[in-house]
Protein backbone atom coordinates (compact mmCIF):
# COMPACT_ATOMS: atom_id res chain seq x y z
CA UNK A 1 0.00 0.00 0.00
CA UNK A 2 1.55 3.25 -1.05
CA UNK A 3 0.78 6.68 0.23
CA UNK A 4 -0.39 9.11 -2.37
CA UNK A 5 2.42 11.54 -1.91
CA UNK A 6 2.02 13.40 -5.15
CA UNK A 7 1.93 17.09 -4.52
CA UNK A 8 -0.89 17.38 -6.99
CA UNK A 9 -1.15 20.94 -5.88
CA UNK A 10 1.81 21.70 -8.07
CA UNK A 11 -0.60 22.59 -10.86
CA UNK A 12 -1.00 25.78 -8.91
CA UNK A 13 2.53 26.85 -9.75
CA UNK A 14 1.95 27.30 -13.47
CA UNK A 15 -1.40 28.87 -12.61
CA UNK A 16 0.35 31.48 -10.50
CA UNK A 17 2.90 32.07 -13.24
CA UNK A 18 0.13 32.51 -15.80
CA UNK A 19 -1.68 34.96 -13.56
CA UNK A 20 1.53 36.89 -13.09
CA UNK A 21 2.09 37.01 -16.83
CA UNK A 22 -1.46 38.21 -17.35
CA UNK A 23 -1.04 40.85 -14.70
CA UNK A 24 2.22 42.07 -16.16
CA UNK A 25 0.57 42.97 -19.41
CA UNK A 26 -2.72 44.23 -18.07
CA UNK A 27 -3.09 47.75 -17.04
CA UNK A 28 -4.26 51.24 -17.71
CA UNK A 29 -1.22 52.32 -19.63
CA UNK A 30 -1.56 50.97 -23.14
CA UNK A 31 1.67 49.97 -24.84
CA UNK A 32 3.41 50.22 -21.53
CA UNK A 33 7.14 50.39 -21.82
CA UNK A 34 9.58 48.07 -20.11
CA UNK A 35 10.19 50.49 -17.24
CA UNK A 36 6.54 50.25 -16.27
CA UNK A 37 6.24 46.52 -16.80
CA UNK A 38 9.42 45.47 -15.10
CA UNK A 39 10.05 48.45 -12.93
CA UNK A 40 6.61 49.00 -11.46
CA UNK A 41 4.36 46.08 -12.21
CA UNK A 42 6.70 43.20 -11.59
CA UNK A 43 7.60 44.21 -8.03
CA UNK A 44 3.94 44.82 -7.40
CA UNK A 45 2.96 41.39 -8.69
CA UNK A 46 5.69 39.79 -6.63
CA UNK A 47 4.41 41.66 -3.59
CA UNK A 48 0.89 40.43 -4.29
CA UNK A 49 2.23 36.89 -4.57
CA UNK A 50 4.15 37.13 -1.30
CA UNK A 51 1.28 38.72 0.61
CA UNK A 52 -1.27 36.30 -0.83
CA UNK A 53 0.93 33.33 0.00
CA UNK A 54 1.55 34.59 3.52
CA UNK A 55 -2.12 35.18 4.23
CA UNK A 56 -3.33 31.96 2.58
CA UNK A 57 -0.81 29.95 4.57
CA UNK A 58 -1.52 31.57 7.92
CA UNK A 59 -5.28 31.37 7.39
CA UNK A 60 -4.95 27.63 6.86
CA UNK A 61 -2.76 27.30 9.95
CA UNK A 62 -5.13 29.23 12.21
CA UNK A 63 -8.11 27.30 10.90
CA UNK A 64 -6.33 24.09 11.82
CA UNK A 65 -4.89 25.33 15.10
CA UNK A 66 -8.11 26.82 16.41
CA UNK A 67 -10.22 24.04 14.85
CA UNK A 68 -12.47 26.81 13.60
CA UNK A 69 -13.22 27.13 9.89
CA UNK A 70 -14.09 30.79 10.40
CA UNK A 71 -10.62 31.75 11.55
CA UNK A 72 -8.60 34.15 9.51
CA UNK A 73 -5.02 35.36 9.95
CA UNK A 74 -6.18 38.36 11.95
CA UNK A 75 -8.28 36.59 14.51
CA UNK A 76 -5.79 36.83 17.31
CA UNK A 77 -5.22 40.53 17.38
CA UNK A 78 -2.84 40.70 14.43
CA UNK A 79 -4.76 43.27 12.41
CA UNK A 80 -5.38 45.47 15.43
CA UNK A 81 -1.68 45.33 16.26
CA UNK A 82 -0.74 46.20 12.70
CA UNK A 83 -3.17 49.12 12.67
CA UNK A 84 -1.75 50.34 15.95
CA UNK A 85 1.70 50.27 14.36
CA UNK A 86 0.39 52.19 11.35
CA UNK A 87 -1.26 54.74 13.60
CA UNK A 88 1.95 55.22 15.52
CA UNK A 89 3.80 55.84 12.27
CA UNK A 90 1.12 58.26 11.21
CA UNK A 91 1.52 60.14 14.46
CA UNK A 92 5.29 60.22 14.11
CA UNK A 93 5.08 61.29 10.49
CA UNK A 94 6.70 58.13 9.14
CA UNK A 95 5.76 57.61 5.53
CA UNK A 96 4.16 54.51 4.11
CA UNK A 97 7.15 53.38 2.09
CA UNK A 98 9.75 53.94 4.77
CA UNK A 99 11.52 50.91 6.25
CA UNK A 100 10.58 52.23 9.67
CA UNK A 101 6.92 51.87 8.73
CA UNK A 102 7.47 48.26 7.74
CA UNK A 103 9.28 47.52 10.98
CA UNK A 104 6.71 49.21 13.19
CA UNK A 105 3.77 47.49 11.56
CA UNK A 106 5.56 44.15 11.62
CA UNK A 107 6.40 44.60 15.29
CA UNK A 108 2.85 45.72 16.07
CA UNK A 109 1.27 42.76 14.32
CA UNK A 110 3.60 40.18 15.73
CA UNK A 111 3.66 41.46 19.30
CA UNK A 112 -0.11 41.85 19.47
CA UNK A 113 -0.45 38.20 18.48
CA UNK A 114 2.09 37.06 20.98
CA UNK A 115 0.55 39.19 23.66
CA UNK A 116 -2.73 37.43 22.94
CA UNK A 117 -0.95 34.11 23.27
CA UNK A 118 0.64 34.95 26.63
CA UNK A 119 -2.63 36.30 27.99
CA UNK A 120 -4.31 33.04 27.06
CA UNK A 121 -1.73 30.92 28.85
CA UNK A 122 -3.69 30.36 32.01
CA UNK A 123 -2.39 27.42 33.99
CA UNK A 124 0.55 26.94 31.66
CA UNK A 125 -1.37 26.17 28.51
CA UNK A 126 -3.33 28.22 26.03
CA UNK A 127 -6.50 26.41 25.05
CA UNK A 128 -8.39 27.29 21.91
CA UNK A 129 -11.20 28.98 23.78
CA UNK A 130 -8.78 31.08 25.81
CA UNK A 131 -6.91 32.10 22.66
CA UNK A 132 -10.02 33.31 20.91
CA UNK A 133 -11.28 35.20 23.96
CA UNK A 134 -7.96 36.85 24.57
CA UNK A 135 -7.74 37.71 20.85
CA UNK A 136 -11.06 39.50 21.10
CA UNK A 137 -9.90 41.36 24.19
CA UNK A 138 -6.63 42.51 22.64
CA UNK A 139 -8.27 43.50 19.33
CA UNK A 140 -11.02 45.44 21.03
CA UNK A 141 -8.62 47.32 23.25
CA UNK A 142 -6.23 48.22 20.46
CA UNK A 143 -9.08 49.19 18.16
CA UNK A 144 -10.42 51.52 20.84
CA UNK A 145 -7.03 53.22 21.09
CA UNK A 146 -6.85 53.51 17.33
CA UNK A 147 -10.33 55.02 17.14
CA UNK A 148 -9.38 57.48 19.86
CA UNK A 149 -6.37 58.58 17.86
CA UNK A 150 -8.36 58.88 14.66
CA UNK A 151 -11.05 61.04 16.28
CA UNK A 152 -8.42 63.30 17.79
CA UNK A 153 -6.34 63.56 14.63
CA UNK A 154 -8.81 63.40 11.83
CA UNK A 155 -6.40 64.38 9.10
CA UNK A 156 -4.70 61.00 9.35
CA UNK A 157 -7.84 58.93 9.08
CA UNK A 158 -8.02 58.49 5.32
CA UNK A 159 -4.54 57.06 4.99
CA UNK A 160 -5.34 54.69 7.83
CA UNK A 161 -8.49 53.57 6.07
CA UNK A 162 -6.39 52.74 3.03
CA UNK A 163 -4.05 50.77 5.24
CA UNK A 164 -6.95 48.92 6.78
CA UNK A 165 -8.34 47.99 3.40
CA UNK A 166 -4.96 46.91 2.17
CA UNK A 167 -3.19 47.87 -0.99
CA UNK A 168 0.07 47.78 -2.81
CA UNK A 169 2.27 50.76 -3.07
CA UNK A 170 5.60 50.94 -4.83
CA UNK A 171 7.32 48.43 -2.63
CA UNK A 172 10.90 48.77 -1.63
CA UNK A 173 12.57 45.67 -3.09
CA UNK A 174 14.56 45.08 0.05
CA UNK A 175 11.40 44.96 2.16
CA UNK A 176 9.73 42.78 -0.45
CA UNK A 177 12.65 40.39 -0.22
CA UNK A 178 12.44 40.34 3.58
CA UNK A 179 8.75 39.49 3.50
CA UNK A 180 9.38 36.96 0.76
CA UNK A 181 11.99 35.13 2.80
CA UNK A 182 9.86 35.16 5.94
CA UNK A 183 6.84 33.78 4.11
CA UNK A 184 8.92 31.17 2.29
CA UNK A 185 10.55 29.97 5.51
CA UNK A 186 7.19 29.84 7.31
CA UNK A 187 5.55 27.85 4.53
CA UNK A 188 8.53 25.49 4.42
CA UNK A 189 8.26 24.99 8.17
CA UNK A 190 4.57 24.26 7.86
CA UNK A 191 5.19 21.86 4.99
CA UNK A 192 7.66 19.93 7.16
CA UNK A 193 5.44 19.70 10.24
CA UNK A 194 2.08 19.30 8.53
CA UNK A 195 1.15 16.06 10.21
CA UNK A 196 1.14 17.65 13.66
CA UNK A 197 -1.50 20.10 12.54
CA UNK A 198 -3.62 17.17 11.37
CA UNK A 199 -3.16 15.46 14.73
CA UNK A 200 -4.09 18.71 16.44
CA UNK A 201 -7.61 18.36 15.01
CA UNK A 202 -8.08 15.37 17.27
CA UNK A 203 -8.00 17.61 20.31
CA UNK A 204 -5.27 18.28 22.81
CA UNK A 205 -5.71 15.14 24.88
CA UNK A 206 -5.65 12.76 21.94
CA UNK A 207 -2.73 14.65 20.39
CA UNK A 208 -0.79 14.10 23.60
CA UNK A 209 -1.59 10.40 23.47
CA UNK A 210 -0.11 10.29 19.99
CA UNK A 211 3.22 11.50 21.29
CA UNK A 212 2.78 15.12 20.24
CA UNK A 213 3.45 17.91 22.70
CA UNK A 214 0.39 20.04 21.96
CA UNK A 215 1.83 23.11 23.68
CA UNK A 216 5.05 23.00 21.71
CA UNK A 217 3.28 22.38 18.43
CA UNK A 218 0.79 25.14 19.12
CA UNK A 219 3.63 27.55 19.81
CA UNK A 220 5.57 26.55 16.68
CA UNK A 221 2.61 26.86 14.35
CA UNK A 222 1.51 30.02 16.06
CA UNK A 223 4.93 31.52 15.48
CA UNK A 224 5.01 30.47 11.81
CA UNK A 225 1.53 31.83 11.12
CA UNK A 226 2.15 35.07 13.02
CA UNK A 227 5.45 35.75 11.24
CA UNK A 228 3.88 35.08 7.90
CA UNK A 229 0.89 37.34 8.65
CA UNK A 230 3.07 40.11 10.01
CA UNK A 231 5.28 39.96 6.91
CA UNK A 232 2.19 40.24 4.71
CA UNK A 233 0.55 43.04 6.65
CA UNK A 234 3.73 45.10 6.88
CA UNK A 235 3.92 45.07 3.12
CA UNK A 236 0.31 45.63 2.15
CA UNK A 237 -1.86 46.49 5.11
CA UNK A 238 -4.68 44.31 6.36
CA UNK A 239 -6.02 42.73 3.19
CA UNK A 240 -9.12 40.82 4.14
CA UNK A 241 -10.73 37.57 3.02
CA UNK A 242 -7.67 35.98 1.42
CA UNK A 243 -6.74 34.08 4.55
CA UNK A 244 -10.34 33.09 5.12
CA UNK A 245 -11.48 32.06 1.66
CA UNK A 246 -8.41 30.47 0.09
CA UNK A 247 -7.95 27.63 2.62
CA UNK A 248 -11.64 26.79 2.35
CA UNK A 249 -11.54 26.53 -1.42
CA UNK A 250 -8.36 24.48 -1.34
CA UNK A 251 -9.81 22.23 1.34
CA UNK A 252 -12.65 21.41 -1.01
CA UNK A 253 -10.19 20.62 -3.79
CA UNK A 254 -7.38 18.85 -1.89
CA UNK A 255 -9.08 17.57 1.24
CA UNK A 256 -8.55 18.69 4.82
CA UNK A 257 -5.19 17.07 5.43
CA UNK A 258 -2.51 19.66 5.88
CA UNK A 259 -0.12 17.56 3.84
CA UNK A 260 -1.38 19.46 0.81
CA UNK A 261 -3.44 22.23 2.35
CA UNK A 262 -0.65 24.42 3.68
CA UNK A 263 1.39 24.67 0.49
CA UNK A 264 -1.67 24.84 -1.72
CA UNK A 265 -3.20 27.61 0.40
CA UNK A 266 0.00 29.60 -0.01
CA UNK A 267 0.00 29.11 -3.78
CA UNK A 268 -3.75 29.68 -3.99
CA UNK A 269 -3.43 32.87 -1.96
CA UNK A 270 -0.74 34.15 -4.31
CA UNK A 271 -2.93 33.38 -7.32
CA UNK A 272 -5.98 35.03 -5.81
CA UNK A 273 -4.22 38.18 -4.78
CA UNK A 274 -2.38 38.63 -8.08
CA UNK A 275 -5.72 38.47 -9.86
CA UNK A 276 -7.44 40.71 -7.32
CA UNK A 277 -4.68 43.28 -7.55
CA UNK A 278 -4.84 43.27 -11.34
CA UNK A 279 -8.54 44.08 -11.10
CA UNK A 280 -7.83 46.69 -8.44
CA UNK A 281 -5.31 48.38 -10.71
CA UNK A 282 -7.09 48.20 -13.99
CA UNK A 283 -10.83 48.17 -13.34
CA UNK A 284 -11.34 51.83 -12.55
CA UNK A 285 -8.13 53.24 -13.95
CA UNK A 286 -6.64 55.74 -13.33
CA UNK A 287 -8.19 55.39 -9.88
CA UNK A 288 -6.63 52.64 -7.82
CA UNK A 289 -9.12 50.64 -5.86
CA UNK A 290 -7.58 49.28 -2.67
CA UNK A 291 -7.11 45.57 -3.19
CA UNK A 292 -8.95 44.83 0.06
CA UNK A 293 -12.13 46.17 -1.57
CA UNK A 294 -11.80 43.67 -4.41
CA UNK A 295 -11.16 40.75 -2.07
CA UNK A 296 -14.12 41.81 0.06
CA UNK A 297 -16.34 42.06 -3.03
CA UNK A 298 -15.42 38.47 -3.76
CA UNK A 299 -15.91 37.57 -0.12
CA UNK A 300 -19.65 37.93 0.27
CA UNK A 301 -20.73 35.91 -2.80
CA UNK A 302 -18.15 33.33 -1.84
CA UNK A 303 -19.69 32.85 1.55
CA UNK A 304 -23.16 32.58 0.11
CA UNK A 305 -21.89 29.93 -2.29
CA UNK A 306 -20.07 28.13 0.51
CA UNK A 307 -23.22 28.13 2.59
CA UNK A 308 -25.18 26.54 -0.22
CA UNK A 309 -22.51 23.98 -1.05
CA UNK A 310 -22.03 22.91 2.56
CA UNK A 311 -25.75 22.99 3.18
CA UNK A 312 -26.31 20.35 0.56
CA UNK A 313 -23.40 18.24 1.85
Amino acid at each position, binding site marked *: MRINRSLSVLWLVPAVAAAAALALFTGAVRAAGPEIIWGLRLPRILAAAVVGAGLGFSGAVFQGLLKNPLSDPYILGTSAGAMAGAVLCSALGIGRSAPAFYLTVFAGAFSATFFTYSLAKIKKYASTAHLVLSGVAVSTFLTALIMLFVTLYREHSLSLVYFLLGGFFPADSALLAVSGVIVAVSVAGGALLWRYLDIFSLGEEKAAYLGTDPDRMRLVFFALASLSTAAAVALAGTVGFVGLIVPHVLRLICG*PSHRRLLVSSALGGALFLILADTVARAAAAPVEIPVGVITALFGAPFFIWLLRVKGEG
Partner: protein
Amino acid sequence: MSMSLIKAEGLKFSYNGVPAVAGAGFELQEKDLLAVVGPNGSGKSTLLRLVSGFLEPLEGSVELLGRDVRSYSKTELARLVAFVPSELYLPYDFSVFEIALMGRSPLVSWWRDYSDVDASRVFEILKDMGILELRDRSINSLSSGERQLALIAQALAQDPRVLLLDEPTSHLDINYKMLIFELLTRLAGAGMGVIVVSHDLALMSAYAGKAVILKKGGQLFYGPAKEGLSGANIAAAYGISDPASVARLLSIY
Protein backbone atom coordinates in the same frame (compact mmCIF):
# COMPACT_ATOMS: atom_id res chain seq x y z
CA MET B 1 3.89 -16.56 32.90
CA SER B 2 2.46 -13.34 31.48
CA MET B 3 4.50 -10.22 31.79
CA SER B 4 3.26 -7.43 34.01
CA LEU B 5 2.45 -4.35 32.01
CA ILE B 6 0.89 -1.95 34.47
CA LYS B 7 0.91 -1.82 38.24
CA ALA B 8 -1.28 0.78 39.85
CA GLU B 9 -1.19 1.25 43.60
CA GLY B 10 -3.04 3.45 46.05
CA LEU B 11 -4.08 6.02 43.50
CA LYS B 12 -5.72 9.20 44.71
CA PHE B 13 -6.79 12.17 42.65
CA SER B 14 -8.98 15.22 43.11
CA TYR B 15 -10.35 17.84 40.79
CA ASN B 16 -10.08 21.21 42.53
CA GLY B 17 -10.27 19.61 45.92
CA VAL B 18 -13.14 17.29 45.09
CA PRO B 19 -11.90 13.69 45.38
CA ALA B 20 -12.40 11.69 42.20
CA VAL B 21 -10.33 8.60 42.81
CA ALA B 22 -9.57 7.41 46.32
CA GLY B 23 -7.28 4.46 46.73
CA ALA B 24 -7.47 2.49 43.49
CA GLY B 25 -5.03 -0.23 42.52
CA PHE B 26 -4.69 -3.21 40.21
CA GLU B 27 -2.27 -5.06 37.97
CA LEU B 28 -2.56 -5.47 34.23
CA GLN B 29 -0.68 -8.28 32.56
CA GLU B 30 -0.29 -9.34 28.96
CA LYS B 31 -3.42 -11.05 27.66
CA ASP B 32 -5.60 -9.38 30.30
CA LEU B 33 -8.93 -7.85 29.44
CA LEU B 34 -9.67 -5.76 32.49
CA ALA B 35 -13.04 -4.14 33.04
CA VAL B 36 -13.40 -0.95 35.05
CA VAL B 37 -16.98 -0.44 36.18
CA GLY B 38 -18.78 1.81 38.57
CA PRO B 39 -21.41 4.51 38.69
CA ASN B 40 -20.93 7.96 37.19
CA GLY B 41 -18.74 9.96 39.48
CA SER B 42 -16.86 6.97 40.82
CA GLY B 43 -13.72 7.99 38.97
CA LYS B 44 -13.55 5.45 36.15
CA SER B 45 -12.44 7.85 33.44
CA THR B 46 -10.12 9.60 35.88
CA LEU B 47 -8.55 6.28 36.78
CA LEU B 48 -7.97 5.55 33.11
CA ARG B 49 -6.29 8.91 32.66
CA LEU B 50 -4.09 8.32 35.69
CA VAL B 51 -3.06 4.98 34.24
CA SER B 52 -2.35 6.53 30.84
CA GLY B 53 -0.05 9.07 32.43
CA PHE B 54 -2.17 12.00 31.30
CA LEU B 55 -2.96 12.99 34.88
CA GLU B 56 -0.57 13.00 37.80
CA PRO B 57 -1.90 11.28 40.94
CA LEU B 58 -1.91 13.12 44.25
CA GLU B 59 -0.88 9.92 45.93
CA GLY B 60 0.06 6.49 44.74
CA SER B 61 1.86 5.37 41.62
CA VAL B 62 1.39 3.86 38.22
CA GLU B 63 4.19 1.73 36.85
CA LEU B 64 4.41 0.85 33.19
CA LEU B 65 6.85 -1.99 32.52
CA GLY B 66 8.55 -1.33 35.82
CA ARG B 67 8.99 2.44 35.40
CA ASP B 68 6.81 5.30 36.59
CA VAL B 69 4.45 6.04 33.73
CA ARG B 70 5.12 9.78 34.07
CA SER B 71 8.84 9.23 33.56
CA TYR B 72 8.39 8.21 29.93
CA SER B 73 8.71 10.78 27.18
CA LYS B 74 5.50 11.42 25.25
CA THR B 75 6.85 9.58 22.23
CA GLU B 76 8.05 6.52 24.21
CA LEU B 77 4.72 6.36 25.97
CA ALA B 78 2.77 6.62 22.70
CA ARG B 79 4.63 3.58 21.40
CA LEU B 80 3.50 1.53 24.38
CA VAL B 81 0.07 2.81 25.36
CA ALA B 82 -2.83 3.79 23.12
CA PHE B 83 -5.99 5.52 24.33
CA VAL B 84 -9.35 5.40 22.62
CA PRO B 85 -11.80 8.10 23.74
CA SER B 86 -15.51 7.49 23.58
CA GLU B 87 -16.27 10.31 21.20
CA LEU B 88 -14.16 12.63 19.16
CA TYR B 89 -15.26 15.84 17.56
CA LEU B 90 -13.56 16.38 14.23
CA PRO B 91 -14.17 19.74 12.59
CA TYR B 92 -12.78 18.60 9.25
CA ASP B 93 -13.59 15.61 7.06
CA PHE B 94 -10.49 13.46 7.26
CA SER B 95 -10.76 10.05 5.63
CA VAL B 96 -10.70 6.88 7.71
CA PHE B 97 -7.30 6.04 6.28
CA GLU B 98 -5.90 9.46 7.20
CA ILE B 99 -7.30 9.16 10.72
CA ALA B 100 -5.78 5.70 11.20
CA LEU B 101 -2.46 6.81 9.70
CA MET B 102 -2.17 9.48 12.41
CA GLY B 103 -1.72 6.62 14.83
CA ARG B 104 1.67 5.92 13.24
CA SER B 105 2.96 9.38 14.15
CA PRO B 106 4.77 8.39 17.37
CA LEU B 107 6.72 5.85 15.35
CA VAL B 108 7.89 8.35 12.75
CA SER B 109 10.61 10.92 13.42
CA TRP B 110 9.36 14.48 13.31
CA TRP B 111 11.26 15.44 10.20
CA ARG B 112 10.10 12.45 8.22
CA ASP B 113 6.89 11.64 6.45
CA TYR B 114 4.86 8.46 6.92
CA SER B 115 6.43 5.67 4.90
CA ASP B 116 4.96 2.90 2.78
CA VAL B 117 5.56 0.60 5.75
CA ASP B 118 3.25 2.80 7.80
CA ALA B 119 0.67 2.76 5.05
CA SER B 120 0.84 -1.02 4.77
CA ARG B 121 0.43 -1.48 8.49
CA VAL B 122 -2.65 0.75 8.51
CA PHE B 123 -4.04 -1.13 5.51
CA GLU B 124 -3.53 -4.42 7.37
CA ILE B 125 -5.23 -3.14 10.51
CA LEU B 126 -8.25 -1.77 8.61
CA LYS B 127 -8.54 -5.10 6.81
CA ASP B 128 -8.37 -7.13 10.06
CA MET B 129 -11.07 -4.96 11.53
CA GLY B 130 -13.27 -5.36 8.49
CA ILE B 131 -13.46 -1.67 7.65
CA LEU B 132 -11.06 -1.57 4.71
CA GLU B 133 -13.80 -0.58 2.30
CA LEU B 134 -14.42 2.52 4.41
CA ARG B 135 -10.87 3.77 4.09
CA ASP B 136 -11.57 6.69 1.77
CA ARG B 137 -14.83 7.69 3.42
CA SER B 138 -14.95 10.83 5.51
CA ILE B 139 -14.94 10.01 9.20
CA ASN B 140 -17.86 12.35 9.78
CA SER B 141 -20.01 10.45 7.29
CA LEU B 142 -19.80 7.15 9.16
CA SER B 143 -22.22 5.62 11.61
CA SER B 144 -21.25 5.74 15.28
CA GLY B 145 -20.15 2.14 15.23
CA GLU B 146 -17.97 2.53 12.14
CA ARG B 147 -16.51 5.73 13.58
CA GLN B 148 -15.56 3.98 16.78
CA LEU B 149 -13.88 1.22 14.79
CA ALA B 150 -11.88 3.88 12.92
CA LEU B 151 -10.74 5.39 16.23
CA ILE B 152 -9.74 1.96 17.48
CA ALA B 153 -7.82 1.41 14.25
CA GLN B 154 -5.96 4.65 14.91
CA ALA B 155 -4.98 3.39 18.35
CA LEU B 156 -3.90 0.00 16.99
CA ALA B 157 -1.74 1.73 14.39
CA GLN B 158 0.52 2.77 17.26
CA ASP B 159 1.38 -0.94 17.73
CA PRO B 160 0.84 -0.51 21.45
CA ARG B 161 1.25 -3.10 24.18
CA VAL B 162 -1.52 -1.57 26.25
CA LEU B 163 -4.89 -0.44 24.92
CA LEU B 164 -7.10 1.81 27.04
CA LEU B 165 -10.69 2.42 26.04
CA ASP B 166 -13.05 4.89 27.67
CA GLU B 167 -16.68 3.88 27.14
CA PRO B 168 -16.09 2.49 23.64
CA THR B 169 -19.54 1.03 23.19
CA SER B 170 -21.93 3.06 25.31
CA HIS B 171 -23.65 4.76 22.40
CA LEU B 172 -23.52 1.90 19.92
CA ASP B 173 -25.90 -0.72 18.61
CA ILE B 174 -25.63 -4.20 20.04
CA ASN B 175 -23.99 -5.60 16.91
CA TYR B 176 -21.15 -3.11 17.20
CA LYS B 177 -20.93 -3.67 20.96
CA MET B 178 -20.36 -7.36 20.32
CA LEU B 179 -18.00 -6.74 17.40
CA ILE B 180 -15.81 -4.49 19.50
CA PHE B 181 -15.71 -6.77 22.52
CA GLU B 182 -14.86 -9.72 20.26
CA LEU B 183 -12.07 -7.61 18.78
CA LEU B 184 -10.76 -6.69 22.24
CA THR B 185 -10.78 -10.34 23.27
CA ARG B 186 -8.77 -11.24 20.13
CA LEU B 187 -6.28 -8.47 20.82
CA ALA B 188 -5.84 -9.54 24.43
CA GLY B 189 -5.44 -13.14 23.32
CA ALA B 190 -2.62 -12.06 21.04
CA GLY B 191 -0.75 -10.57 23.99
CA MET B 192 -2.04 -7.02 24.43
CA GLY B 193 -3.15 -5.70 27.81
CA VAL B 194 -6.58 -4.12 27.48
CA ILE B 195 -8.43 -1.95 29.98
CA VAL B 196 -12.01 -1.04 29.21
CA VAL B 197 -14.10 1.46 31.11
CA SER B 198 -17.71 0.70 30.37
CA HIS B 199 -21.28 0.87 31.49
CA ASP B 200 -22.10 -2.28 29.54
CA LEU B 201 -22.09 -4.55 32.56
CA ALA B 202 -23.49 -7.58 30.80
CA LEU B 203 -20.89 -7.43 28.07
CA MET B 204 -18.11 -6.83 30.56
CA SER B 205 -19.10 -9.83 32.61
CA ALA B 206 -19.23 -11.92 29.43
CA TYR B 207 -15.86 -10.91 28.06
CA ALA B 208 -13.65 -9.50 30.82
CA GLY B 209 -11.05 -11.57 32.57
CA LYS B 210 -10.39 -9.17 35.41
CA ALA B 211 -12.45 -6.41 36.91
CA VAL B 212 -12.03 -3.30 39.00
CA ILE B 213 -15.21 -2.04 40.59
CA LEU B 214 -15.26 1.53 41.79
CA LYS B 215 -17.81 3.34 43.84
CA LYS B 216 -17.91 6.92 44.96
CA GLY B 217 -15.20 7.21 47.55
CA GLY B 218 -13.09 4.24 46.70
CA GLN B 219 -12.44 0.89 45.12
CA LEU B 220 -14.78 -1.92 45.96
CA PHE B 221 -13.12 -4.83 44.21
CA TYR B 222 -10.18 -5.95 42.12
CA GLY B 223 -9.80 -9.48 40.92
CA PRO B 224 -11.20 -12.05 38.51
CA ALA B 225 -14.24 -10.73 36.68
CA LYS B 226 -16.37 -13.82 37.20
CA GLU B 227 -16.04 -13.34 40.92
CA GLY B 228 -16.19 -9.57 40.94
CA LEU B 229 -19.05 -8.81 38.59
CA SER B 230 -21.61 -10.41 40.87
CA GLY B 231 -25.03 -9.13 41.77
CA ALA B 232 -23.89 -8.29 45.27
CA ASN B 233 -20.84 -6.23 44.21
CA ILE B 234 -22.67 -4.35 41.48
CA ALA B 235 -25.57 -3.58 43.80
CA ALA B 236 -23.16 -2.30 46.42
CA ALA B 237 -21.26 -0.12 43.92
CA TYR B 238 -24.33 1.39 42.29
CA GLY B 239 -26.44 1.64 45.41
CA ILE B 240 -29.13 -0.79 44.29
CA SER B 241 -31.06 -2.30 47.14
CA ASP B 242 -31.82 -5.70 45.60
CA PRO B 243 -28.70 -7.64 44.47
CA ALA B 244 -30.82 -10.49 43.11
CA SER B 245 -32.52 -8.27 40.55
CA VAL B 246 -29.14 -7.09 39.31
CA ALA B 247 -27.92 -10.65 38.92
CA ARG B 248 -31.04 -11.55 36.96
CA LEU B 249 -30.64 -8.53 34.69
CA LEU B 250 -27.01 -9.30 33.97
CA SER B 251 -27.71 -12.85 33.00
CA ILE B 252 -30.27 -11.90 30.36
CA TYR B 253 -27.48 -11.88 27.85
